[in-house]
């Protein structure tokens, strides 16, 4: 735990200096570590999932997050800060507790989301608040010329098995919704996942993504960023 913290702190200036270049150092507790097990529920994650979140309290607790993720949880269209609304509550909880446990690396956010800053009850409240935010705004989109290619890759390589045909994810299994997320964030995350540098990642996803070229990743990000938000009307054709 301690050494994790030191590592995270040591990474901070590097990350700040590089501005937005993804930090590609692997997490010592994340994927790639000998004993990594996907979603090995930490005691804290279990604790938070058991709590009943209160959206009104969550709005207040979310204040400490608004400086980056904005007051409506929409993040930035340039993808530096992801959109959190529309994400499943269980996924929000998994990601925040993974970051707190040092499994997912996120030095930019760490001082504002670690246990001295936010209590387990507040994480549950924030997840409830975000789930109740239903406004859908225009997200950051890709160039738009790779949508067909992206769709083919997404279907043929089986991404939909976990993330759904409409990019809706799966709350129960804690697979994130990926539809209508900001383009640059999607691209960055896939690069990190491919390099095993995000920390938490499903090993089956890493296996598939490993042989993706940059062009492949850009095409998939283009496609996903241009999907309708999964909370909106269902896709006209295809579907399940």
């Amino acid at each position, binding site marked *: 735990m301690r050494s994790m913290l030191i590592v995270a702190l040591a990474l901070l200036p590097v990350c700040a200096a590089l501005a937005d270049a993804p930090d590609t150092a692997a997490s010592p507790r994340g994927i790639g570590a000998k004993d990594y097990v996907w979603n090995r529920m930490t005691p804290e994650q279990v604790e938070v999932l058991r709590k009943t979140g209160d959206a009104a309290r969550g709005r207040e607790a979310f204040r*400490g997050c608004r400086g980056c993720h*904005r*007051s409506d949880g929409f993040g930035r269209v340039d993808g*530096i800060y992801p959109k959190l609304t529309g994400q499943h509550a269980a996924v929000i909880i998994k990601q925040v507790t993974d970051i707190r446990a040092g499994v997912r690396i996120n030095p930019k956010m760490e001082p*504002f989301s670690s246990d001295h800053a936010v209590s387990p009850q507040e994480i549950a409240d924030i997840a409830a608040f975000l789930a109740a935010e239903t406004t859908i705004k225009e997200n950051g989109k890709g160039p738009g010329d790779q949508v067909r290619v992206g769709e083919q890759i997404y279907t043929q390589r089986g991404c939909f098995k976990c993330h759904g045909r409409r990019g809706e994810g799966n709350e129960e299994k804690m697979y994130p919704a990926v539809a209508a997320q900001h383009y640059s964030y999607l691209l960055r995350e896939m690069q990190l996942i491919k390099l095993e540098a995000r920390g938490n990642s499903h090993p089956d996803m890493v296996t598939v993504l490993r042989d993706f070229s940059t062009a492949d990743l850009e095409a998939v990000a283009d496609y996903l960023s241009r999907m309708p938000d999964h909370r909106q009307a269902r896709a006209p054709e295809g579907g399940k």
Partner: protein
Amino acid sequence: MIRTGRAPASRSGRRRAGHPSKPALFLMLGLLASASMPLAAQAQGTGPNPLCAACHNPDGNSTIPENPKLAGLDAEYIAKQLADFRKHKRVSETMGPMAGQITEADIDVLAAYYSEQKPTPGVVTDPKLAAQGQVIYDEGIVGSAVPACSGCHNEDGSGTAKYPRLAGQHTAYMVQQMKNFKNGVRNNDIREVMSAVAKRMTEQEMKAVAEYIAGLKGGNP
């Protein structure tokens, strides 16, 4: 009445660090006890507190740039700061000994009094710098992951109990506090989030954002 020792706020005139010596403390307490009216009573309702007024002005709108304006700050925030000064959780050569001169019971009365005063507008001397500061205040600094100040302190700088009002505050005071947060001199912020913000900022950025905040109205027309 009560001898305030009107410490000038200029750097050269600042008091020696630490707490008053034992005999001095007894003397002060003696003076307090012998005063016909307890401090709390003086602060109640109408009466501005003369001890505090020496540095913060009777209505809490200090005119000395190093001394913060107290007018319009949330009562809970003021009470927390006074309690922190008394416990030396927040350290200041000038203000520390002053907080030692009041009682626990005075805290709530003083906090209520200053929170109800109307804050005066701040002074902006460099509009160009303020324009740079606005970007920091509303958007943060993405390169160094500084979150937007508006997220916690509100867009108009009106603040809350936990995230203090900043609108119209003296720039010299704010820059000093941000530096104090950055180098650990001030570390009484709940959850250490303000320290985390300041640690990511340069002094130039602090000056720019303070210049912008000085012009904020904070809900005051």
